[in-house]
């Protein structure tokens, strides 16, 4: 690459940060100028939000400054994004600045849309109805849980896509443990309400997770599509008029793309996500636009691990694009999640577009147990936070963990999926 090119990255979360840092290391500032935009300067370690309601993490522990995570030689703009003009290759910021680009990376993630569910913003919001999917919600819920001694706790996500589809289940498991610890579990009923026909979307993992819910005495109501939340009468009402009453509800609001996507003709779909090639992560909107992480409309989980694995592929493909070469790297849909089950244990699942989570070991025959509760998986989940700040965001490779889903340690015969 001989000429000077301009790269604009929208969003400085997991994806935008790791992409900016990897690109900065690969190209000199003479070759590639990198501008990163985000609306605030608070980078939240989102997996930590699960622990805040139970007093297992303090809000301060999981937040750092966005600009401090970016390498030298990256220009950071703290400003709201107004729109992207995909014809003119321009980004318009709310402060009047226009950034022009040769290549654009959209990594603005997904936002919570509580206003899209009838009644959810009613008087009982943050009083008897909470979410732990943002920091204010998780913090407020911590206080409420401390005083909750008896009654019916309901956990409900309304519809996919949501970030980390296992987090609502983890919340149920941790709540069971938390109330046991406080000696009030017998006075509290816990019900997990889901629009799916089982505890999880993938059959083998769903069977394991259903068994765990059962062992912990957590009720499940499936195929319940919440259309309305009455925060005063304290009930969930489904689109087909079924009702679930509660004393305390923990809900996961609907998710959508960032607001500016809707103000940018041609950029996103109805939900504000960016259509792209599932394997190259190049948008189908225009060749010089790429997508990373939750902002992408790819058929896998919205999760940090997905963003991490996508990131490595994306950098190679942006490199190829800038040099006019064919893009050869392929993302396979690889996702990897620790699932906290309480009592200092966790499960690990690992899957991709074609292979559902199965038992075995990760990343090879000698490794962490898959789809099985263990203490070492819990330690893995706790250690991950340090890895996130010190290796994942700076863009360092993790020894032994590659981009593509490993098959070596897996019992793939147990899978009904094609692979």
């Amino acid at each position, binding site marked *: 690459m001989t000429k000077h090119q301009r790269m604009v990255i929208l969003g400085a979360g997991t994806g935008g940060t790791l992409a900016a840092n990897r690109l900065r290391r690969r190209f000199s500032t003479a070759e590639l100028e990198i501008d990163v935009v985000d609306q605030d300067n608070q980078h939240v370690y989102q997996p930590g939000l699960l622990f805040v309601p139970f007093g297992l993490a303090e809000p301060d522990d999981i937040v750092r400054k966005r600009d401090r995570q970016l390498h030298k030689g990256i220009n950071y703009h703290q400003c709201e994004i107004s729109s992207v003009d995909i014809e003119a290759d321009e980004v318009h910021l709310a402060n009047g600045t226009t950034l022009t680009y040769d290549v654009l990376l959209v990594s603005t993630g997904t936002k919570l849309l509580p206003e899209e569910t009838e009644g959810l913003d009613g008087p009982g919001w943050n009083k008897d109805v909470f979410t732990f999917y943002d920091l204010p919600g998780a913090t407020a819920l911590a206080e409420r849980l401390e005083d909750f001694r008896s009654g019916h706790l309901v956990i409900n996500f309304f*519809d996919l*896509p949501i970030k980390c589809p296992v987090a609502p289940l983890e919340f149920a498991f941790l709540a069971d443990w938390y109330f046991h610890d406080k000696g009030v579990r017998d006075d509290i009923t816990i019900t997990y309400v889901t629009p799916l026909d089982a505890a999880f979307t993938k059959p083998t993992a769903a069977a394991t997770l259903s068994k765990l819910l059962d062992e912990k005495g957590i009720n499940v109501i499936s195929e319940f599509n919440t259309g309305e939340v009455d925060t005063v009468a304290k009930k969930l009402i489904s689109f087909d008029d079924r009702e679930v009453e509660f004393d305390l509800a923990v809900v996961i609001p609907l998710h959508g793309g960032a607001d500016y996507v809707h103000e940018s003709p041609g950029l996103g779909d*109805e939900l504000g996500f960016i259509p792209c090639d599932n394997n190259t992560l190049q948008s189908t909107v225009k060749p010089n636009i790429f997508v990373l992480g939750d902002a992408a409309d790819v058929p896998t989980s919205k999760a940090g691990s997905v963003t991490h694995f996508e990131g490595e592929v994306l950098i190679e493909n942006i490199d190829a694009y800038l040099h006019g070469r064919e893009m050869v790297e392929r993302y396979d849909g690889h996702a990897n999640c620790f699932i906290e089950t309480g009592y200092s244990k966790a499960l690990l699942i690992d899957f991709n577009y074609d292979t559902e989570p199965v038992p075995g070991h990760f990343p090879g025959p000698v490794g962490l147990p898959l789809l099985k509760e263990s203490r070492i998986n819990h330690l893995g989940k706790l250690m991950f936070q340090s890895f996130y700040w010190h290796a994942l965001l700076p863009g360092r490779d993790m020894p032994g963990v590659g981009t593509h889903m490993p098959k070596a340690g897996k019992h793939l015969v147990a899978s009904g999926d094609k692979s």
Partner: protein
Amino acid sequence: MPTTQLAGKSVEVNDEGFLVDPNEWTEEMATELADLHGVATPLTDRHWVVINFMRKEYFENGTGATVRKLGKASGVNTRELFQLFPKGPAKLSAMIAGIPKPKGCI
């Protein structure tokens, strides 16, 4: 894969009953599939708005729409979708439209 008889033709279906090849589907099969999966027949014009939208989405994007996308883009709102296709509008309308279970249900 098991096969089943639909509208006088033998077609391949997967374990959940979704047609394996959407090109084998005919409009006559839609009514039989609806009967099989608890959707009231005869199918109305409103059912067909959704079924046709699902097939269009599938052939354009490689997957049928989710409930939310249907509610925003098909011209039938979410509450009516649940009246037309009780319990699971996306799954049921995909089934009746002869296309695979919509992705994004992850």
